[in-house]
Structures are given as C-alpha cells and as structure tokens.
C-alpha cells in the first residue's frame, strides 16, 4: 500500500508538468491529424493524473490511523477522524459534516477509478473539475474566516488552509482536470472543414479535352 501511495504521489507531483509540456506541443503542431493523435495520448495520461489525485485523496482519508491495521473498523475510524476535519471547516451542521465525511472518500474512489478507465471522459473530467473547485472554495472560505485548520485533503502532508494549499490544489489538481476536460470536449467535437482531409480532385477525360 505504501508503494501504491508513493506511485500515486509521483504521478500527481509530476503529471501536471507533463500535461503543460504536452499543451505547448499541441499548440505548436499545425497538422490537424497529428494534433488529434497527440491530444488523445495526452487525454489518456491526463485521465491517469487526475484519477491519481482522487484515488490518493480517497486512500489518504481511508487508510488506518497509526498503530491500526487495515480492517473495516479501522476504515470507519479513519472516516470518523476525517469527519473531525470536515467539522472544523464550520460550514456544515455536525450531522451534515458527518455525512459528507462518510460519503466523500467513496465518491473520490469511484471518480478516480472512472477517470482512469477513460470511459465518458468528458463527464468524468468535468465532474472532477467541479469537485476540485468545490474543495478550493471551501479552503478559501475557511482562510477568509480566519480559521487555522488543516485542509484535510488526504494527499501527502496535511497542509494548513491558506494560499499554499490553494496554490498546490490549483496547480497539481485543478489545472490537469481542466486541461483534460477541455481536451476531452475538443476531441469529441466534429472536425472543422480546415481540419478535414481535402478530397482528391478527379480528372475526367471530358474536362481535359
């Protein structure tokens, strides 16, 4: 499990850099067919990167607390601890915070797996983008209200809410999600006339005579 977590962290830490380089390459490519091929490849990679974000987030929230082994009760205890973090945002009533804490990690797990499969990528990446925006709004709200709390993201070291957490979330999480969303919608649209292959001119004996 530790290796899996390390692998996910590696993908998250470096994935956005690769996607940014890929974006530059795509913008420099003139040939429409080549561009589409590169975008398709980047979408697969992007799906893995954004999927890794949500899988790591789910894992971070569910993994056993120090001293406890993996078991259903230990997962419940970890989620109860996550409920404390959600409650500390002071955005929801205790009951609602508890519900969010016990549903969100499973949602993240589902969304992470969905992104990795690439099925209906437009919608999975759009949902991911919306979810990350929601998290960032919550962090911003806590920061503006002067709350000195942990972000509870579950990925890597738990950062305090504030500009550093927002920068990290924006760069490593939201940027890849938005790039994948835009790319997935772009690749799905019908090619324009300039991108369609031009039909070959057919010479007829009558025309040449």
């Amino acid at each position, binding site marked *: 499990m530790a290796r899996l977590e390390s692998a996910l962290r590696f993908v998250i830490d470096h994935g956005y850099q690769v996607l940014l380089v890929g974006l530059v390459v795509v913008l420099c490519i003139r040939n429409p067919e080549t561009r589409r091929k590169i975008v398709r490849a980047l979408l697969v990679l992007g799906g893995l990167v954004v999927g890794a974000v949500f899988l790591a987030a789910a894992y971070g929230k569910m993994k056993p607390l120090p*001293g406890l082994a993996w078991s259903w009760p230990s997962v419940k205890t970890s989620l109860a601890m996550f409920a404390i973090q959600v409650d*500390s945002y002071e955005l929801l009533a205790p009951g609602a915070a508890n519900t969010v804490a016990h549903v969100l990690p499973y949602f993240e797990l589902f969304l992470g797996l969905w992104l990795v499969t690439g099925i209906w990528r437009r919608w999975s990446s759009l949902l991911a983008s919306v979810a990350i925006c929601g998290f960032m709004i919550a962090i911003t709200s806590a920061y503006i209200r002067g709350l000195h709390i942990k972000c509870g993201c579950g990925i890597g070291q738990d950062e305090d809410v504030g500009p550093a957490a927002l920068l990290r979330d924006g760069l490593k999480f939201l940027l890849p999600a938005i790039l994948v969303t835009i790319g997935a919608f772009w690749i799905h649209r019908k090619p324009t006339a300039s991108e369609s292959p031009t039909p070959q001119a057919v010479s007829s004996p009558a025309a040449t005579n």
Partner: protein
Amino acid sequence: MEVFTDYQCPSCRSLFLGTLTQLIASDYIASGKVFLVHHDFPLQAHMYSGFAALWANAAASLGEFPAVELALYQNQDAWQANGDIAKYVASAMPSADFKRVEAIVNACGTPAPQSAPNSGNPLVNIPHPCALDRVIAEDVELGYKIPVQATPTYVITFKGNKLPAGSGVVSWPILKQFFDSLLSQ
C-alpha cells in the same frame, strides 16, 4: 487527548464551551476511557492570554482550576477588553481562596510567558520567572514540538501512537463518534 489552548482565543472558547465541557461531564473521563490534558499556549497576538494562564495555573495549585477555566472562557469578551482577569477569577471561588491565588499571581510579576515566532523562548522577556512561568513555558515548548501553529490544537494518543494533530473547533457529536470508533478497536 492533549489540548493546547489560549484563553483569549475565540475558537478555544468555542471548543471548550461547546465540546470539552461535555467531554468532561461525560462518562469518558469519569470511567478513565479518555484522559483530557490541558496545555497552555498563549499566543503573542493576545495581550492578556499569558496572564490568564497564570491565573488559571495559580488556581490549579489550590484545586480551583475547573471553575476558573470556565469563568475565563465564559467572560472572555469582558476581560480581554481591559485585562481585568482578577474580577472573574474572584467570582469563581471563595474569597479566601482568591486571596491566596492572587498572592501567587502577584509574586510572578510581569510580563507573563507567551509563545513566540520561530519557536522562540517564552521566557525571553522574563528575567526572574516564577514557578508558574516555568510551568507555562514548559507547555509552550511542548507545543513547539507538535508543532502547534494555531490554537486550539489537539493531539490524541491511542495505545501509545500519537495520531496526527488536529486544530480548530470540533463539535461534541463528531468527537464522541470518533472516540467510540477508536475505543472499539
């Protein structure tokens, strides 16, 4: 559960009045399932929090800590406006005890210990610290090791394992649920 608090901190007041009072009154403490340990972490930004900690520790030496802690948080808005902590400590105990507590605090002098940026020495401005100053300074030094970056910060230790520190307010039903889940392991 170790809690690092500042008597002048609004979130610490919310945590104490909304959650810790219920924890203290609950079966968890009485039955020994949970041990609640209070640590002082007066923040430099709060002018009177160090003095409030002095009063609370002086009261603790006479066994009057619970009443004084409650009085300090309940009247936080009042005493933080002008620093008149003595008035509210006096209202929380018999007058004879208050005189003894007052004598202990007066023996300590000013300023009171407070946490400092970059884990600075909380006694740096106190050339002749009294015993209570040292007690508060020990709590602050302990907080630096967590590290406490804001108050309230709490650390729960379960079967010898320190869980990741938490900060901010947590409501009693949520905390209770966590204790129940942890104790069922």
